[in-house]
Every structure is written in structure tokens, then in C-alpha cells.
């Protein structure tokens, strides 16, 4: 027996059932998630999110949908609102899936970082790394013009979400025009997947 025999770790695969439009299951590696231990000694938390179609994150609710706060299975409160990581920097790497054309991201990304007079809005269709300093609001992220699978890879400088101290911008109001740009005018899918607790 080697002292390293537990160093090849099966990550948590968080799958929505039914799957959210535009996003496949998320692999998570960290010190804990929903009360489970993964690898206590890890220095960081990572999340790997394959994007499979137009998608948006942290976009708030459009006016026509009742705003709500999700209650997760472990009692944690969440929702599709912009966020602050009060005790962790976060790096979000966007990369494509075409090994013959590594500079093709496969979609267009609009990323909002900061707020008020300090907001920067990044637009890109090539791989990028977005650095989110602790205490800075980030989101929404709008992914449009999807052509090919891409991946969002997040690295937190803390080993767990609890340690990162994530705060939601509950008062953020969704931008109807941007939301429709992502999902079209059929709001039934939006209501089905975003306006109720994640499964």
C-alpha cells in the first residue's frame, strides 16, 4: 500500500434531471460539496462545465418570470444571480473543443465583471481566462451563437464553496432583451428549468 493510493479521485458529477438546455453535467472537485468529502487535503475547488448550446449564468430573472430563491437539497440558498466570492479569487477559463483549431471557442461569450462605474463587459469568441478578484461582482454571462461544445473551467483559491464565502446579488434584475437573445422567445423552457428548484 502506498500513501498515495487515494490520490486519484473520482470527482462529483452533478447532473440536472432533466438536463438544463445548453449545459451538460458539472464535474466538481474540492474539499466538500453538499456535505460530502472529496479530498480533504485539496488546496483549491474546481468546477468543469461543458456548454452544449446557447446558455446564460447568473442572469437574474426576466420581468415576466416570478423571481425566486432556490433551496438546494442541503438547505443552501441559491439562484441565478450575479455573485461575489468574498474570500476567494476565481479564475474562469473558457476553451473550445476543436483540436485542429484551438483558437475557435465555438460560441460568443459576453461576461460582466464588476458593477456600477467599475463594470467591465468582455466579449470574446476565442479562448480566454477571466480573473475575478475576491469581493468583485461577476455575472451575468451570456453565451450565444453556439456552434460547437466549449468548456468553462473554474478555479477558486479556496478548497470549498463555504470557505469562498459566496454572496448572491439577490436584488439584480434580469435584462429581458439579453435573456431572449440567449434562449429565444419561447419562455416555456426557461420557466421549466430556471423558475423552479434544480432537480
Amino acid at each position, binding site marked *: 500500500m502506498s500513501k498515495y493510493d487515494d490520490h486519484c479521485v473520482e470527482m462529483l458529477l452533478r447532473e440536472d434531471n432533466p438536463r438544463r438546455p445548453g449545459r451538460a453535467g458539472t464535474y466538481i472537485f474540492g474539499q466538500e460539496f453538499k456535505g460530502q468529502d472529496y479530498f480533504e487535503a485539496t488546496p483549491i475547488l474546481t468546477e468543469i462545465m461543458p456548454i452544449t448550446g446557447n446558455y446564460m449564468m447568473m442572469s437574474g430573472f426576466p420581468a415576466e418570470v416570478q423571481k425566486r430563491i432556490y433551496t438546494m437539497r442541503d438547505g443552501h440558498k441559491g439562484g441565478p444571480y450575479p455573485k461575489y466570492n468574498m474570500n476567494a479569487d476565481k479564475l474562469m477559463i473558457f476553451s473550445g473543443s476543436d483540436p485542429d483549431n484551438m483558437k475557435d471557442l465555438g460560441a460568443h461569450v459576453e461576461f460582466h465583471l464588476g458593477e456600477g462605474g467599475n463594470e467591465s463587459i468582455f466579449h470574446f469568441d476565442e479562448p480566454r*481566462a477571466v480573473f475575478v478578484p475576491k469581493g468583485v461582482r461577476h455575472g451575468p454571462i451570456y453565451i450565444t451563437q453556439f456552434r460547437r461544445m466549449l468548456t468553462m473551467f473554474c478555479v477558486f483559491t479556496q478548497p470549498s464553496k463555504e470557505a469562498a464565502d459566496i454572496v448572491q446579488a439577490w436584488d439584480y434584475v434580469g435584462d429581458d432583451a439579453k435573456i431572449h437573445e440567449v434562449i429565444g422567445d419561447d419562455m416555456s423552457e426557461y420557466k421549466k428549468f430556471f423558475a423552479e428548484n434544480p432537480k
Partner: protein
Amino acid sequence: MSRPPKADLSANCVEMFLKDPKPPEPGKAAVWMYGQDHFPAAEHWIETWMVTGDHVMMPGTPAGAEKIIHVGPDGHRGGPYPKFHHNADNLMIFTGTDPANPRDLGAHVEFHLGEGDQAQVFHFDAPRCIVIPRGVRHFPMIVTGWRRPFVITDILTAPTRTAAGTETDFSYETPA
């Protein structure tokens, strides 16, 4: 709610460096690199690449063969031999590219961690994260039974490879 800091965020969307050797390395697409060389506030050195076929990483050279030594632009001496990171922990995350079947890695991986009586050899064909503590030798890595591209993301808890204290074990000999 906290006040937003006054820092200028306009530089925080970073174009990473693409290491794109010509001809490409067998079984491996070009590598995206991110670290302090590309963004001054970076806290990690990260490389991510797609595996495109069977291959071996850091296989060493057979006993008696001339050693292969690469000298980087920073003077760092490397080569196709197992490594140590003396000042940084290292995560290597392996994920597939089939969103309909996320538990399929797309190939079989054999990964060597540690040495001597602490040597551990991992075999897997589903996504995994390998945790490499600082100071522990790692590699070779052998990819076989390749069916579909998969992604390796390599994270060092240091902002540069120099800060990670990376050392190559030039004494390693490929097993006969």
C-alpha cells in the same frame, strides 16, 4: 453588500498563451497556458490541452541511451522524464468531451505517482483528478485505447513554473 473595489478590471479578460509546436506532438493538441507571465495577479500556473491519440508523456529514455535535455528560454532544463514540483501542489484533471456520456473519458490512462516503495500506478477510463503533493515524483503517463478526444487541465499552486520549483528526474530509465 460590499462596495465594489476601485481597481481597473478591464485587463482581467486574459488572452492565454498557445504553445503550438510544429509539427504537433503525437497524441496531443496545442497547449493553452496561463500564469503570472500572462496576468500579473495570477495565483496559479495552468495548462490545458486535448489528447488526440495514444501516446506516452515523460517516458524517460532506456538505460544507456543518451539523455534528452531541453533548455527553455528561461534557462530551465527539462526533458521527457518524470517531474517533481518542490514548491507547489499539482492537480491534473482528466475530463471527456461527450456531453451525452460524461463518465466516458474516451481512452485508458495509466499514471505513475510516487517512487520506490511508495510508487502508485493508477488506471482509469473515466474522469478523474490526480492530486500530486509537492515534492512527489510523477509520470510517466500512458494513454492507450484512445477513442475520442479528452482534456487534461494541469493546475499548479504557484504562479510560474519557476516558483513551483519544477525539477526533472534525468536519472529515470524507461523500464525494459
